[in-house]
């Protein structure tokens, strides 16, 4: 069956769609703010006329390469290509500035590819186990996952712990704008319909990172790369293989967060980054172009988008809004995802999975081939690149929901981001607060209702206890470590 599946996936027409999907995905992904969701929903109607296998292979290619392409803008111009690649800016862009844009793109292609492969193997081999985990997770556990992430907030603050925590708090406050996720009553909306749905993440991130960066570059003049070099792409490939444990850690974060329908690529990549920084012996080098700070989120992101498919193919329900589109594509072709998918549809499901694997290979090869040309962006004078960043971030902000107000949000946060940059305050913390605020609040309230208004629900499962212990360890860990070292020294004396 597998051979048959690969034979279908490797037919000329399917290969053609695979390459086309990859190129379209790269183009959409490289546009600031436009991520996999945008790419796949844009392409979905085109697949209605295609044979089922071709349609899914095409969408898989768009999906995988949009997620990969998202990182290109993050690395080269510090502009998140989509919600999943915010964390890729943090070490990717400093590398580009140091004249290693090509190396960073090499790392990004290789890590994304490895993430995709880890995700694919998990989808094939351990999805029944992972789905058991997903079923065990409920609102109390989701709330505690968010708390674990919040406990890592100080790690993101580049040594300015207090400022970082304060900015994280501001991010959380901003997350509370809009309709209450449970009671649906409006808060802090000043009577405007625009704020009913809360502050949109992409326009905020585009402002804080991209637009503010445009202001900074305009001031600096010259080019993004401070030395006239882009580094070697091959070095990036080797660098990724050298940090194999980082790849594995990123992969685990991607799978676990991906398989949980309530969490997505933004939390996966950020969590992977923070965990990597947490376990590093030199956390101070993160944010200054440490390759591990780029490998971890890249692996996690692409691993997560495949893990998102696990609930889709094992349970028949979508793991994310993008996989909801996959389900739509399958149903429109008369296929029903779920356990019977393999039993009833002959070689087709195998072709679909072969296609998902080929999509990873396709973006990896095409990405590596094109990286050299993409990387040259950092050698373009800022006088040319700045207007382009302003233009692209405005388009990206608008295109998500076609709302002019989103552009205003980008401009406002662009100015705020610029001020923070001047003071060397970590703007990342605001984004973290914003991403986690929603998950924290909604799941806290949900858990409280499920627990019949008793807080005991938060300690009622073994997963909860593990998560609470991780949080406590992550907060007290550094102090405990120092204490133990001191005690050891004393014993030696």
């Amino acid at each position, binding site marked *: 069956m597998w051979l048959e599946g690969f034979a279908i996936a490797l037919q000329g027409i399917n290969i053609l769609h695979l390459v086309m999907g990859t190129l379209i995905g790269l*183009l959409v992904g490289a546009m600031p703010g436009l991520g996999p969701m945008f790419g796949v929903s844009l392409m979905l109607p085109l697949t209605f006329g295609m044979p089922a296998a071709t349609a899914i292979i095409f969408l898989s290619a768009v999906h995988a390469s949009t997620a990969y392409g998202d990182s290109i803008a993050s690395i080269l111009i510090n502009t998140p290509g989509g919600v999943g690649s915010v964390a890729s800016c943090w070490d990717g862009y400093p590398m580009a500035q140091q004249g290693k844009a090509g190396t960073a793109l090499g790392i990004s292609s290789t890590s994304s590819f490895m993430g995709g492969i880890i995700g694919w193997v998990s989808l094939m081999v351990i999805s029944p186990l992972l789905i058991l985990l997903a079923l065990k997770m409920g609102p109390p556990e989701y709330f505690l996952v968010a708390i674990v992430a919040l406990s890592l907030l100080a790690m993101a603050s580049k040594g300015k712990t207090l400022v970082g925590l304060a900015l994280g708090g501001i991010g959380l406050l901003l997350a509370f704008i809009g309709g209450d996720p449970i009671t649906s009553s409006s808060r802090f909306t000043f009577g405007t319909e625009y704020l*009913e749905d809360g502050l949109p993440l992409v326009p905020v991130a585009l402002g804080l990172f991209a637009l503010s960066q445009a202001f900074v570059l305009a001031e600096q003049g010259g080019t993004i790369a401070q030395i006239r070099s882009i580094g070697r792409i091959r070095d990036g490939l080797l660098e990724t293989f050298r940090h194999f444990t980082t790849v594995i850690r990123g992969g685990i974060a991607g799978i676990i967060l991906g398989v949980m329908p309530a969490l997505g690529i933004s939390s996966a990549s950020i969590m992977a980054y923070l965990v990597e920084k947490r376990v590093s012996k030199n956390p101070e080098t993160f944010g200054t172009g440490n390759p591990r700070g780029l490998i971890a989120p890249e692996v996690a992101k692409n691993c997560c988008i495949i893990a998102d498919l696990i609930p889709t193919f094992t349970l028949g329900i*979508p793991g994310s809004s993008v996989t*909801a589109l996959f389900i739509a594509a399958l149903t429109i072709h008369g296929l029903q995802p779920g356990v019977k998918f393999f039993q009833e549809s002959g070689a087709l499901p195998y072709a679909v999975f072969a296609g998902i694997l080929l999509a990873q290979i396709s973006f990896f090869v095409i990405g590596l081939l094109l990286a050299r040309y993409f990387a040259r962006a950092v050698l373009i004078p800022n006088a040319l690149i700045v207007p382009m960043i302003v233009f692209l971030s405005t388009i990206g902000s608008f295109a998500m929901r076609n709302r002019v107000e989103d552009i205003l949000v980008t401009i406002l946060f662009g100015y705020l981001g610029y001020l923070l940059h001047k003071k060397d305050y970590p703007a990342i913390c605001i984004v973290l607060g914003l991403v986690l605020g929603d998950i924290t609040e909604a799941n806290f309230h949900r858990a409280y209702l499920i627990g019949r208004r008793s807080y005991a629900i938060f300690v009622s499962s073994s997963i909860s206890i593990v998560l609470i212990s991780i949080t406590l360890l992550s907060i007290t860990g550094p102090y405990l470590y120092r204490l133990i070292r001191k005690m050891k020294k004393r014993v030696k004396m």
Partner: protein
Amino acid sequence: MCKRICFSLVMGVLLVSLVSVDSFSQEKFPSQPIRIVATHAAGGTTDVPIRVFQPFAQKALGVPVVIENMVGGGGNTARAFVFKQKPDGYTLLGTKQPSMSGGEIVQGGKFESLKFVAVFNIAGKNYNCLAVPYDSPLKTLDDLKKASASKPLITAGPGIGTNAYMFAMLLKRYVGINVEYVPFDSGADAALALAGGKTQIGVGNLENYWPLHEQKKARILATAGPERDETHRQFPTVVEQGYPQVSLDEMTGLFAPPGLPKDRLEILIKGFTKAAAEPEFKAAALKANLTLLPLAGDDYYKASKAMHESVKGMEDILKAGVSK
């Protein structure tokens, strides 16, 4: 980089051409692309009927028909947006009823459902269902009623004001199942919480629960429609179990902002009716598991109004279910 510049140039040229089309050709309708603003994300139960219909509508009207998903506020963001648009027939709303009325009445959406011009309904009968975890000892409506007498049953569902929410509130009032409604971000999230045994009841779209029922992770007890669902005839309705008031029909169709000129409405209705009659459209709809319910103009308005009034009649129950 070159590619990106080319792309920007193409986008620029496209924008300029759109603007010039706008200013020079106003007399013939339709002469510009028609935009359908869908209330929910691409691939969802609101979006799919519109997407399947779109290529045929495009062919019948002779201009591009573009779907735009304006997600947010449980659909209210898109509804409020279209409500304020110029009634020129070029911007339409793609939404479900009675969830539009629910959004207005329960959540206080900034639009008036009955002032929208009803253009064309595409599909119907996308029923909700009531499910319990597979190993739950509660297997009938009576079991649920008895079990909830001492304390409310925790019920997972998608959002406040949605059709599933209305179904839960009807069960509370007319069947006497005391529910504590816990809203989740999506129907899929709610269904997973139920399958994982986190809640005692789950309400939501049949499509979300059917795969879980098949895998013995959830058990569907009843559906919300006035009659059994055509594709899942094995599930009884709540109505046939002796509760005629618990009946919730659904429609997915297109509305225009208030004040759409009559001549333009007629052109749209003519085009959409022609599109809906295409055998290829019917085949595509069948493949996508859609139950078609073509209703145009006045007929559509009447059906939508009846749904609105039934929601209005439940206003007190619907508002009472919002947990604080």
